[in-house]
């Protein structure tokens, strides 16, 4: 991703909830074909504290149809995707059988990165160590209210990219992009060389372009999952991803 960013490309990381449908891995290929630079794969958890209504519903639906961590990773292991994958899940899933075991399994499944929104900077030591040992890049998150010195530490400690949360709230679609979100992107870019992606509430190509103005790219989740939940297939949703790609490239 760093290479692509350095090549002047605005990065696009679309999201899909693992297990949301029988053909959920098809979304990965379709996203990659539509111009994704990496893909965030949500590993569903029963109590997704930081997710809004859309991703909650997706998690609930995936769990109801029997989705398990082991099942998802086995499926990913058998499904090479053209772009890097980062798993997003919650601490309890990570720690259930030990963080080291979990990271090893990610690596075996070919997953490149890991995002755990309820393991903040102060609690990250153990997980960071075992992720590095397993060869998994642990992506840290920063928020608009994170203090300046802490932002620098987060940026330095994060691997893969730095995830800038644009809003004080849960995942979900919103209009516009706040000044504080742009400031967050700018600040994070000043700390170190890793790509800075903004996420939470970015849904339209216009917002994506706006975000790309003060960061290296965006994560888009809820607007895509809303389409998936509405029954739209990989090819249809990939159309939206392509539109986001176009928005970024034009921006």
């Amino acid at each position: 991703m760093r290479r692509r960013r350095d090549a002047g490309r605005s990065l696009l990381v679309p999201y899909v909830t693992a297990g949301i449908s029988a053909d959920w891995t098809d979304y990965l290929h379709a996203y990659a074909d539509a111009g994704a630079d990496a893909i965030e794969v949500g590993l569903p958890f029963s109590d997704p504290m930081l997710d809004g209504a859309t991703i909650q519903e997706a998690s609930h639906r995936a769990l109801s149809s029997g989705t398990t961590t082991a099942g998802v990773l086995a499926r990913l292991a058998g499904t090479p995707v053209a772009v890097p994958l980062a798993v997003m899940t919650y601490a309890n899933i990570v720690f259930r059988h030990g963080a080291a075991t979990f990271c090893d399994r990610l690596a075996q499944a070919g997953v490149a990165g890991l995002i755990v929104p309820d393991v903040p900077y102060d609690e990250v030591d153990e997980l960071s160590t075992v992720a590095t040992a397993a060869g998994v890049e642990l992506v840290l998150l920063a928020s608009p209210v994170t203090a300046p010195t802490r932002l620098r530490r987060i940026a330095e400690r994060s691997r893969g990219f730095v995830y800038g949360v644009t809003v004080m709230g849960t995942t979900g679609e919103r209009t516009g992009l706040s000044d504080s979100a742009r400031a967050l992107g700018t600040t994070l870019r000043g700390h170190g060389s890793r790509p800075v992606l903004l996420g939470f509430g970015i849904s339209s190509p216009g917002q994506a372009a706006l975000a790309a103005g003060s960061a290296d790219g965006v994560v888009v989740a809820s607007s895509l999952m809303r389409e998936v939940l509405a029954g739209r297939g990989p090819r249809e949703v990939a159309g939206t991803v392509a539109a986001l790609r176009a928005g970024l490239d034009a921006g």
Partner: protein
Amino acid sequence: GRFGRFGGRYVPESLVPACEQLESGFRAAWADPAFRAGLARTLALHAGRPTPVTPALRLSAELGLTLLLKREDLTHTGSHKINNVLGQAMLAKRMGKTRLLAETGAGQHGVASATAAALLGLECVVYMGERDMRRQELNVFRMELLGATVVAVRNGSRTLKDACTEALRGWVTQVDEAHYCVGSVMGPHPYPWMVREFQRVVGEEARQQCAALLPQGRPDVVVACVGGGSNAAGTFAGFVDTDARLVGVEAAGGAAVSRGAPGVLHGYRSQVLQDEHGQILEAHSISAGLDYPGIGPEHAHLADIGRAEYPSVTDAEVVEAVLRLARTEGIVPALESAHALAWVLRAAGTPQLPTGCSVLVTLSGRGDKDGAQLVALRRDGARSGALRRDAAGTPR
């Protein structure tokens, strides 16, 4: 709160500054004699502290031991919840917040929060599972009567666990003006520690009162029920440096210590009821207040190091304990509190509680709120034998 391998602050980065601000705010307040005096005055003049320790004379005689009851059922709003809530509300006001957020299951913590908010002129928003709202219509009404807004939570199991999650989500959006008033010794640091400190008054009063009531000055065993575990944490705080045995009694259907596994929920690491994949399980207990899949991290730690024990009792034993205390002492305890008593009834006369020993049980709340549920149990139990003195099976 860090308690051995448990506790911590497992929250999104967006909540970290609020938790830090709360920690420093609490440290400053707790070190301020004026704050402590103001809280003590409010607890005395408004909430009815100190609560008595009642010698349960008739039941003691029947059981062959000395049974003392710490009477949190006599506080304003009817349970120990008020101790914590007044502390947090006064702290929130001191920190310039204008709104309290609270989660609630059966409604006790919600009512207590609404009460404290009204008293201090704060807004109050209570998150409550939609299913719990239907089951506890009266408590919803009480909160509204007290001026609170009750938000129906329609996610997941639509009960306490989901209300906690939703309250955390809500807090993220309004950290500047709102304080999240957690109802038990759970949540991210500093909550488990801070709530225990606010509940410490239970144990410290009881310790002094036991000194006056017992020839040996100290009870041999100290017992309290545990859901999240705040009344137990407050009680144990008064006796942890004595040689009294500490017993926290869980509901068989929500026994996080004996049936859970280490995990992370609602911002802290502790024993959590979960399946092999790490998905959180719903707890099931006759008492809504213990229907929670986690347990305060300090309890997980006390179990770890062997300083406290956490047995569990069945719903049938709990109903039997309510009847027994009502008929021998004229006290109808909350179903939650009856868990502690149920263990005493089971253990009395065994090596666990030998004849002649002295036992302090914290009655965390009064049973008035459970009337409708007990009536329904009796109705159903006409067949199954529940609510008869010889009740044996699980009554639901």
